[in-house]
């Protein structure tokens, strides 16, 4: 029972109090369309990979620097941020979002992160080079002496839930996706409850 515990968090809608892509979409004239895509993706109607590449293409017109301004001010769940900042070496982020977009949030959290990756030039997003399959993040964190706890809310967290030792569905921003809930061991509906649980594991 002296295994080290490592916590792997989803970012959008788990640590952030709002989904990030719709916030970026507000800068374009495609806000409703991107919000609809995001919703369908969380619910699992469209595969994350496909939807994400499409949304990135639609959002590419927003300068990278403007996206970073948005992500640097997106509200974060205070309980989760405190939890991570107290033990950054035991925490990781697994997000399908792009490294160059969410870097300001990762800087605030100060822990390691697994992200999708993209290339940009002259403040313009060129294209997605890799989308994260979240089970890969869990595998990278796992070894015989480690208990890996995954926390997330969406359909694309299911592979991470299945690979982790303990899966926690989080419903602090919106109810967890049906499939995420079905794959979870625990369900926490706010940051205080979540952190109580994580502290006990």
């Amino acid at each position, binding site marked *: *029972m002296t295994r080290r*515990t490592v916590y792997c968090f989803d970012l959008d809608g788990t640590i952030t109090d709002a989904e990030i892509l719709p916030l970026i979409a507000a800068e374009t004239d495609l806000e409703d369309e991107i919000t609809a895509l995001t919703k369908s993706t969380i619910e699992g109607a469209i595969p994350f990979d496909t939807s994400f590449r499409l949304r990135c293409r639609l959002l590419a017109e927003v300068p990278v620097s403007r996206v970073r301004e948005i992500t640097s001010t997106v509200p974060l769940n205070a309980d989760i941020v405190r939890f991570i900042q107290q033990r950054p070496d035991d925490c990781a982020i697994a997000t399908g979002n792009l490294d160059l977009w969410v870097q300001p949030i990762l800087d605030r959290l100060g822990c390691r992160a697994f992200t999708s990756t993209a290339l940009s030039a002259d403040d313009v997003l060129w294209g997605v080079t890799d989308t994260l399959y979240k089970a890969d993040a869990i595998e990278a964190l796992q070894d015989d002496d480690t*208990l890996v706890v995954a926390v997330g809310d969406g359909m694309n967290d299911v592979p991470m839930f299945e690979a982790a*030792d*303990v899966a926690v569905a989080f*419903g602090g921003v919106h109810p967890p996706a049906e499939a995420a*809930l*079905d794959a*979870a*061991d*625990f*369900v*926490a*509906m*706010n940051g*205080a*409850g*979540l952190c*109580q*649980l994580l502290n*006990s*594991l």
Partner: protein
Amino acid sequence: MIAAAGLGSRLGAATPKCLVKIDGVTLIERQLELLQDVPEVRVIVGFRERDVMDLVSSIRPDVVFVRNPDFAHTHTIHSLRRALQHSSRWFLALDGDLVIEPTSFRSFLATCAATAEDPVLAIGESGTEDGVFVQTATVGSDLLITSFSRERCSGYEWSGMAHLHSNHIAEGDRFVFETLVDSLPMRAAVIDAAEVDTPQDLQRARSVVRDWERAARSITIEPTIDLWETVR
């Protein structure tokens, strides 16, 4: 740890037992009210889990839910073990079908707090249709449980509520009381409670709750009268 995953098949209702109402208030709401000052509450859910989660989190959003998808063919002990997985700690186990008189619950909590590193089982006067009966012995000022029985062997039954350590439920897939046999004798404290397993139990629980509420009202009225007489 509130074990509320079961089908409640003996009650024959289509809802989980913890959502059964007495005087318009569900059993789980009654328990959450009792647990107001308890900092960490976990509810183990299974049968119609979303209904239970929706109601509980609308009342107390920091409650953590433990999923037991195997609820239809596992014992309560399996639920508790899922709730305590990967942790070693003291906890209060409580069945979601138990109605407890508030004053006696508070005094049970105080007993648990005072004997922090000691298991305590809450027993009550037997009244349910097929309870787990306990034989007790008094040693000094302590009431101890010496054995459990499915046969009526005393006037007391175990309520299903207990202050335990995760080690107590570490082994075996049996009824919780069968697992606790190895730890006997254990300390007991008497509570006033009613378990709801069958329609008859529910009827009894309804009348018991009414009695409690009547008693609670008469207690709150008395000081007013005294005060009035003092003033005169």
